[in-house]
């Protein structure tokens, strides 16, 4: 609803302080971090009042992705992707499962909901401290096999150096090109099915380019780093993923339960009338109908997965290379090594990863509100 002119003036005056603060603290600071990432701040006396800063372009980024000393960043980036994938899959899967169990309104539903949701209220530092004890190598979960008369487990939950799905960093451009090829090929297919000409042309050109790069060009160009460097899914992250799934599944459960309860009863009844079992109802009708909820849960959990800093810090320690994450490395490089420029570059990369999810989400919600 729109008020009078005087109202509009007051409204703007009321918002002004918040707007100025956010323009500085959010937008100004993001710009400043981006600027800092283009400098060499941190090579000299970094903590001086007016430290020396020279613009060096994208050198910090080049170093992070291809420089010999920053191989930890590259592993952390790989870890970040796996953290996000497993956290999304784990919380959505478990949350949906719990929501379906609760949907039928079992006795004690309130108690159960409370139990599944309480970890959300706690700080990652609190839960991380407890989980660290549970995953200690010679106690905790490793003792469970002994209850069944077996040997104690030997897995080093938080410090294992083992990796699976290992790949050579030199092949990353090729892998990225192939993933983009698949995305553009799907675009092409979608355009072909719906008969959209421009979409067909773009899909064909881009997927062709990606395939050409991956199969031909990549092998002709010099490698991005001069030696083979291997990264993969670090098994030490499993413990942290379990703890994070435990903490956030209650949240997805709450989202899905609200979604299930929001579906019209007639939907269930007509499915039953057609002879569908409960399982068919959930798989074929309820879950597809909750797609908007799934989408926003994916966005929010992906976003949370970029904020695992406190959990990793308290569970495995900031210095633990096996469980690293760019957010932890940013802290180490900025506040322990005082290398502000490289720290800022890592923060910009994290920001861009988050923006990938957040900006489409905000645009969509802006359109929905208007």
């Amino acid at each position: 609803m729109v008020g009078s002119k005087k109202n509009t003036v007051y409204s703007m005056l009321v918002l002004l302080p918040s707007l100025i603060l956010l323009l500085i603290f959010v937008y100004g600071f993001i710009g400043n971090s981006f600027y800092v990432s283009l400098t060499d701040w941190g090579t000299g006396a970094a903590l001086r009042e007016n430290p020396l800063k020279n613009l060096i372009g994208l050198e910090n980024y080049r170093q992070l992705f291809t420089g010999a000393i920053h191989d930890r960043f590259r592993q952390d980036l790989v870890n970040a992707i796996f953290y996000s994938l497993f956290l999304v899959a784990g919380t959505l899967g478990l949350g949906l499962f719990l929501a379906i169990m609760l949907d039928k309104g079992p006795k004690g539903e309130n108690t159960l909901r409370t139990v599944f949701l309480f970890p959300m209220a706690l700080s990652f530092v609190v839960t991380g401290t407890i989980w660290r004890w549970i995953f200690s190598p010679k106690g905790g979960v490793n003792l469970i096999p002994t209850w069944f008369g077996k040997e104690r487990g030997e897995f080093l939950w938080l410090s294992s150096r083992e990796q699976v799905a290992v790949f050579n960093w030199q092949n990353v451009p090729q892998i990225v090109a192939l993933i983009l090829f698949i995305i553009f090929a799907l675009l092409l297919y979608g355009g072909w099915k719906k008969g959209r000409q421009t979409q067909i042309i773009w899909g064909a050109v881009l997927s062709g380019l990606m395939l050409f790069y991956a199969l031909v060009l990549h092998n002709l160009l010099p490698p991005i780093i001069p030696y083979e460097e291997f990264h993969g899914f670090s098994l030490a992250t499993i413990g942290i993923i379990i703890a994070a799934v435990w903490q956030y599944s209650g949240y997805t459960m709450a989202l899905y339960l609200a979604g299930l309860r929001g579906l019209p009863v007639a939907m269930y009844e007509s499915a039953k009338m057609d002879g569908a079992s409960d399982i068919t109802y959930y798989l074929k009708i309820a879950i597809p109908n909750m797609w908007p909820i799934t989408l926003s849960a994916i966005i929010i959990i992906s976003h949370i997965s970029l904020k695992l800093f406190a959990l990793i810090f308290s569970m495995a320690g900031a210095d633990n290379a096996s469980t690293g994450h760019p957010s932890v490395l940013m802290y180490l490089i900025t506040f322990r090594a005082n290398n502000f420029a490289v720290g800022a570059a890592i923060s910009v990369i994290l920001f861009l990863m988050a923006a990938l999810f957040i900006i489409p989400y905000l645009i969509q919600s802006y359109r929905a509100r208007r």
Partner: protein
Amino acid sequence: MSQNTLRRVSPIVYVMLLAAMVIFLVPIYMAIITALKNPAEIRLATAWHLPSYPYWQSFVEAYNMLLPSLRNSLILTITGTVLSSLVGSINGFVFSKNRFRGSEIVFTLFLFGMFIPYQIILIPLFQLLRAIGIYGSLYGLILAHVVYGIPITTLIFRNFYDQIPNSLVESARLDGAGFFGLYGRLFLPLSVPGFVVVGIWQFTQIWNEFLWGVTLTKQSSQPVTVGLAQLAGGQAVNWNLPMAGSFLAGFPVLLIYIFFGRYFIRGLLAGSVKE
């Protein structure tokens, strides 16, 4: 699905729910039994065993070690919660009932601040706090929490005020209520539930925060999350103290969750469910 469709809940569902509940409570079980063990009794091989007798001394020790940081957290959290709730309330009032051309764009600009990974603002924030001389004090942390709390508090209050019917606003305006009269006499008194949701949300968020706590404070201004991380972080730790410390650090928010869980969940869903 509505409650009134009578359906039988199969025993398999109960078994699975019970199993899930037990698994969800494992960390709490481990924390309680370990905190209550005499340090001499804590051995890795008997990690799952109940204590032979309850040993409360660890709670006293952990309390004494965490006392300064608990005090800091209490001051920080209460101040931050009150200030950011007040700002969010008046902002929400504007965005809900006093829209103007472009207010939706401003609102979207506000919301963006809620979704950024805070590493991206950390270095300039650190620099700014140092430049204005409040780095390492509680004031710096309070400032950060109030400013970065604006988006979520504004969002929750906006959604809350959207439920107040426009006809009520119209008739108050016809009776001559101006902008501040309308807010002060009509909206503020109706806002108690809104303040409860926002207050609980901000309280838990600020209490639980760690990144700023560990980068923007000195020893004397550490919040409890940092105090706990230090208590637990040493090598060869005695596990009774970190576990007792976890309880103390988690206790205030757990208490809120148990008594006001309904409102906590509303705050939780506010960030994700669009009206």
